[in-house]
């Protein structure tokens, strides 16, 4: 019983980490209709920016983190301006392919600028685990989970309750309508990218606090993409809920199935689960069901 609760609660925390990366996919998609396959690389760049602020510049953490977030915001603006804005109006296929180009570009740039060596990442959150009764919870992930939930709630409020947020949704639905309503597609894309890249940096800090940073940090992207698809690419709360579900499924598989299968299933299981759910609900759990018109 304790094993089950322990496994589930670790799963939830891991899931919330997936959730915040998935959120960064969602905010970008919601306002600019870009499925950014290079989001993992964006997380990686965010991590290196944070590392640079703290270790190279030697700033104290309370300055280093805002500096890293500000640099990520600029980074988002640059990507939007030079990669995706010129592709506005192109088929989604071309946009996805551009994000593939971005994967290659960002990996190359990271290796040139910061080198391929791994390095210790500053310890932002306390190390170790918190004990709640017999259950142990990783402190960094726990704090990170709280941050994820706060971010999701904030974004949800932003998209549902504020004028600016509602406008972003309108842009996502239909560029031409948005234009006719006098909404600037350009501005909303910039907002989307700034939100997306800063969220990615936040998730990088949660993921790496006190551990080791290298180019492998980018792998979180392709682990979180399925989560975003499961939640529904348009849905903020979907990203978090799907993250938790996938995290729990992964934890359960690793506790109960891996001993039987030599430790392979916990990595495959989430994919199988997600594909099965998508077979029943192709738009994801909370995605918008869009019926094509001809």
């Amino acid at each position, binding site marked *: 019983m304790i094993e089950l609760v322990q496994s589930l609660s670790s799963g939830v925390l891991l899931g919330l980490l997936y959730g915040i990366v998935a959120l960064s996919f969602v905010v970008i998609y919601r306002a600019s209709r870009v499925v950014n396959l290079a989001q993992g690389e964006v997380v990686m760049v965010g991590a290196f920016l944070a590392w640079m602020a703290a270790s190279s510049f030697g700033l104290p953490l309370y300055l280093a983190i805002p500096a890293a977030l500000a640099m990520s915001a600029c980074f988002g603006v640059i990507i939007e301006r030079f990669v995706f804005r*010129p592709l506005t109006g192109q088929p*989604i*296929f*071309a946009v996805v392919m551009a994000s593939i180009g971005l994967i290659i570009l*960002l990996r190359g740039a990271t290796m*040139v600028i910061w080198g*391929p060596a791994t390095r210790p990442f500053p310890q932002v959150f306390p190390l170790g685990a918190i004990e709640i009764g017999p259950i142990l919870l990783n402190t960094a992930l726990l704090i990170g989970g709280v941050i994820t939930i706060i971010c999701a709630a904030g974004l949800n409020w932003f998209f549902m309750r504020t004028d600016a947020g509602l406008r972003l949704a309108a842009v996502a639905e239909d560029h031409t309508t948005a234009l006719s309503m006098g909404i600037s597609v350009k501005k909303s894309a910039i907002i989307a990218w700034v939100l997306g890249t800063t969220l990615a940096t936040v998730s990088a800090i949660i993921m790496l606090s006190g551990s080791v940073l290298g180019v492998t940090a980018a792998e979180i992207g392709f682990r979180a993409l399925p989560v975003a698809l499961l939640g529904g690419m348009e849905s903020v709360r979907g990203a978090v809920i799907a993250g938790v579900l996938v995290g729990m499924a992964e934890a359960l598989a690793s506790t109960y199935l891996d001993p039987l299968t030599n430790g392979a299933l916990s*990595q495959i299981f989430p994919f199988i689960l997600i594909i099965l759910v998508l*077979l029943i609900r*192709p738009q994801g759990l909370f995605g918008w069901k869009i019926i094509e018109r001809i």
Partner: protein
Amino acid sequence: MLPSGIIFKSYAAEEAFLVTRPQKLVFALFIVALFLFPMVGSTYLVGTVSVMMITMIAVLGLQITVGMAGQINLGQSAFVGVGAYVTAAMAVNYELPFWLAIPIGGLTAGLTSILFGLPAARIKGFYLALTTVAAQVMFPLAISRLPQSWFGGSNGMSMPSMELFGYEIWGQTGLYLVNLCFLIVFTTLAFNLQRSRVGRAFIAIRENDVVAPVMGINLVKYKILAFFIGAVFAGISGGLYAYYVTYVTAEQFTLWLSVIYLGMLLIGGMTSPLGAIFGVIIITFLQETTHEIGGYLSGRISFVDESVLFPATNILLGAVIIAVLIFEPHGMVRRWRIAKAAYRIWPNPHG
């Protein structure tokens, strides 16, 4: 390349790739030159071209799935891996000759891809790319967890050499010639497919997958078929690669490699098999040049070495891919066509 003044006697004749006698002659000479190349090229160069030709087959397959049929595939290198491993298992465990082991590897890769294409029955558009990522994640896990006697587990597999009629195919030259033969066959197949009924159905799906079914095309069947045939090409490429490197491990077939394959296709141009060929040539050339320059500079400038130069190639590569998408969405193939058209109306540029 069609000179001016050619008149076709039937509409079907326009479908042919080589029309005039000089065209056919030049093409035949080109093929002969390819076969004779190992006599003049250095061993290193012949080896490089061999790897290029193997890669071309994989990217030709990707051209069918992604370029013709418009289905995003992020798992091509996993299918190359399936081909490599199955070929190795056939050659090692069952001692099959290469001309049986490689096709079996190709077909197995194709059948595996059907498994990942099946969700196409319900899942549409971009979401389908997810299953190809799944393939890429599952591949190394499957290899390392399946019984060691099948695929060598995490140790990898060592390959025997190729044999034909009891003679060993020996050295870079021998492998080069085998790879060239495979490349010629598979390039022909890809070009044939493009102008056939199935190829047209693929292109229709790429152009408008909402309308294609209303015009009589079985969307699910053709999507799965596109994955299948693309993966068969990948598997063949994998089999050839296994014989070339003589040792296969799961680490050779990464998501990163799948991404690079897509990059090659994008730069060459997605809409024609020629794009796959161009893309591989351009990127290999880029990588080899960087290698050369790196060798030259590293002794002279302190901070320049391999660890900076290879990533620098990737910066260039990524930037070129994005630039191509922005400025020349049809890739280099379109430039080539424009040049061809200019030649065709020469010497009357306004004709």
